[in-house]
């Protein structure tokens, strides 16, 4: 997994934030999907969770439970909670196009399912599918780039996190394939070239918006990405 030095800070703090449970819905989803595909990332999350465990045990002054709490809990040990759990998880289900190779953990945990739904062309050679999460602070999309697609150079007003699900792409910072996560910080200018044989399908989470840079900035008013 290639991580540029400059985005290492962004990457590691994202993984820690995931372990601490402070990411918003869209960011949690892309990191969970990344963990499913990257054993290296899983090790880092385990270290972060071990920090959580240590903080729990060493830095949380015990606060006595109510006198009845233990009794209440013991009384419920034999109850069947599996049914209640599956009731709770009936969140709004999220559809995504059938040709996306979505990690099982994302499908399973969020009732995500592939269906015959259509990609939307936003630029020649580039299609997107909006994942329609109920997340106000960030947007999550799937992106499908045709083989040899080359995006115009662009920058972002917030961060853009890309997880490759199929195929591969290259930008100025490196070459990325399934499971690789790329974090583009604010104002980082880049252009992306999809692999010429397979193209690329990726999950993208953004805060803020994208704008084209250089000559292509003339297109900005027409862009709906």
């Amino acid at each position, binding site marked *: 997994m290639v991580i540029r030095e400059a985005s290492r*800070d*962004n990457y*590691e*703090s994202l993984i*820690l*934030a995931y*372990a*601490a*449970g*402070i990411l*918003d*819905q869209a960011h*949690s*989803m892309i990191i*969970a999907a990344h*963990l*499913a*595909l*990257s*054993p290296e990332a*899983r*090790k*880092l*999350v*385990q*270290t972060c*969770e*071990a*920090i*959580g*465990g*240590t*903080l*729990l*045990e*060493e*830095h*949380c*002054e*015990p*606060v*006595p*439970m*109510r006198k009845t*709490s*233990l009794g209440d*809990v*013991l009384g419920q*040990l034999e109850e069947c909670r599996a049914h209640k759990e599956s009731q*709770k*998880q009936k*969140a709004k289900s999220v559809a995504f196009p059938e040709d996306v190779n979505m*990690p*099982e*953990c994302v499908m*399973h*945990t*969020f009732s995500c399912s592939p269906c015959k739904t259509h990609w939307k062309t936003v630029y020649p050679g580039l299609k997107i599918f909006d994942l329609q999460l109920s*997340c106000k602070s960030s947007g999550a999309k799937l992106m499908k780039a045709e083989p040899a697609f080359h995006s115009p150079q662009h920058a972002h007003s917030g961060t853009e996190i890309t997880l490759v699900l199929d195929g591969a792409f290259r930008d100025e910072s490196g070459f990325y394939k399934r*499971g690789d996560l790329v974090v583009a910080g604010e104002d980082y200018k880049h252009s992306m070239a999809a692999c010429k044989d397979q193209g690329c399908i990726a999950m993208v989470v953004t805060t803020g918006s994208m704008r084209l840079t250089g000559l292509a900035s003339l297109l900005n008013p027409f862009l709906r990405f």
Partner: protein
Amino acid sequence: MLLAVGQNRDKDSFIRVFEYFAPRVKSFLMKNGTREETADELAQETMLAVWDKASSFDPRQASASTWIFTIARNKKIDTLRKTTRYSFESTDDNPDLETTAPSPRQTIERAEEISGIAEAIKALPEDQAQLLRKSFFEDKSHGEIAEETGIPLGTVKSRIRLALERLRKDKKVKSLW
């Protein structure tokens, strides 16, 4: 003790796990301002989940406190933040896990590694340790932490990375990584 709960459904062991961890989980949940009553209920739910899932606890993967922390964290996300939790339960690229119980030696080694993290955290510079505590306890995003403390967001992120690097370099912790 957790192993006894998992393998034998031993209620006495569970009671001891409850008595040690429930007050700490309650304390953890109150650190972001949650009311005591709510924290008490969530701590109870956490312990019920511990009972339900005890058979899946593997001391080779994590210490008891880490495992219980993840359950408490997930309860916190589900309940307090009202977002659907994306937990990690991978089936892709999953290495084969052994199914035999850990040897006493493996359990001791693991305990040493975990105590290594505790020592390494104590040795962190305060500006890094503070950010770790805020991340885990206060339920604020890094952007919100930056705003609250006046520390630039880029600095928050680089201090967190430095803290992680120090923890991973620590000899006892190395084998975790």
